[in-house]
């Protein structure tokens, strides 16, 4: 593996087409009441979201499942309804949260009335290397593993 591949930022790209117009899907991603109802990796989880939908505004999503608390918070970087949403993402209750420095871009494409969502999650390993002594990361993934 060339060195650049190890050092390059990690990027995860996911695609999915949803059977709803993109205004509807965009709303599901940006309104607290909507997020409360679906933003949960497990149907049993209870979700409380708060959203300040403006550039620089903060969001926070708390998830409770049994005796486990987890979630994420961040700020909005770009809001372009109904086509593009960019926000920072830091996982909550995952050890040292400062170790997580990630960016999520959600793009909404019209596909004959349906919506293709492309989600890009970037993680910057320069900070990962810098913070490699923090075990927060692994703790986080252990926790994620138990809930997935």
């Amino acid at each position: 593996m060339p060195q650049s591949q190890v050092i390059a930022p990690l990027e995860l790209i996911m695609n999915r087409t949803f059977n709803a117009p993109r205004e509807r899907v965009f709303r599901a991603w940006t309104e607290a009441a909507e997020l409360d109802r679906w933003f949960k990796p497990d149907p049993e989880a209870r979700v409380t979201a708060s959203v300040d939908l403006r550039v620089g505004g903060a969001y926070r999503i708390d998830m409770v499942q049994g005796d486990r608390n987890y979630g994420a918070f961040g700020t909005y970087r770009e809001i372009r309804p109904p086509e593009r949403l960019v926000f920072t993402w830091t996982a909550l209750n995952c050890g040292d949260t400062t170790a997580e420095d990630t960016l999520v871009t959600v793009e909404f494409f019209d596909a004959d009335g349906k919506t293709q969502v492309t989600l890009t999650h970037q993680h910057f390993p320069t900070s990962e290397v810098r913070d490699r002594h923090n075990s927060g990361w692994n703790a986080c993934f252990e926790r994620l593993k138990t809930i997935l």
Partner: protein
Amino acid sequence: MLTALMRREATVSELAAPHNISLPAVMKHLRVLEGAGLVSQRKIGRERHCRLTADAMKPASEWIVQYSQFWERQFDALDRYLAESQPETKEKIPCRNPKLSPRSN
């Protein structure tokens, strides 16, 4: 060099062997990798043994796997949610004639 280390721990001279560079140059390169937290070295007898720092490599691949599972689940959840809430919305997609405004809803 990192590829070689991904397979197993190696001595500095073993790492240098396949490359047409001097031992000091290899050692300098290793110090850079060590400084970046990717490689660690230890001395056994007269030889320096190098290995990849698992902590530096493991989170990267785990991060990808864990978050792709996480978002996959979130997409499933959104899919279910939209399917459930769709009939209540006024934005129901007309099947044949998308140009017509669905006033009858």
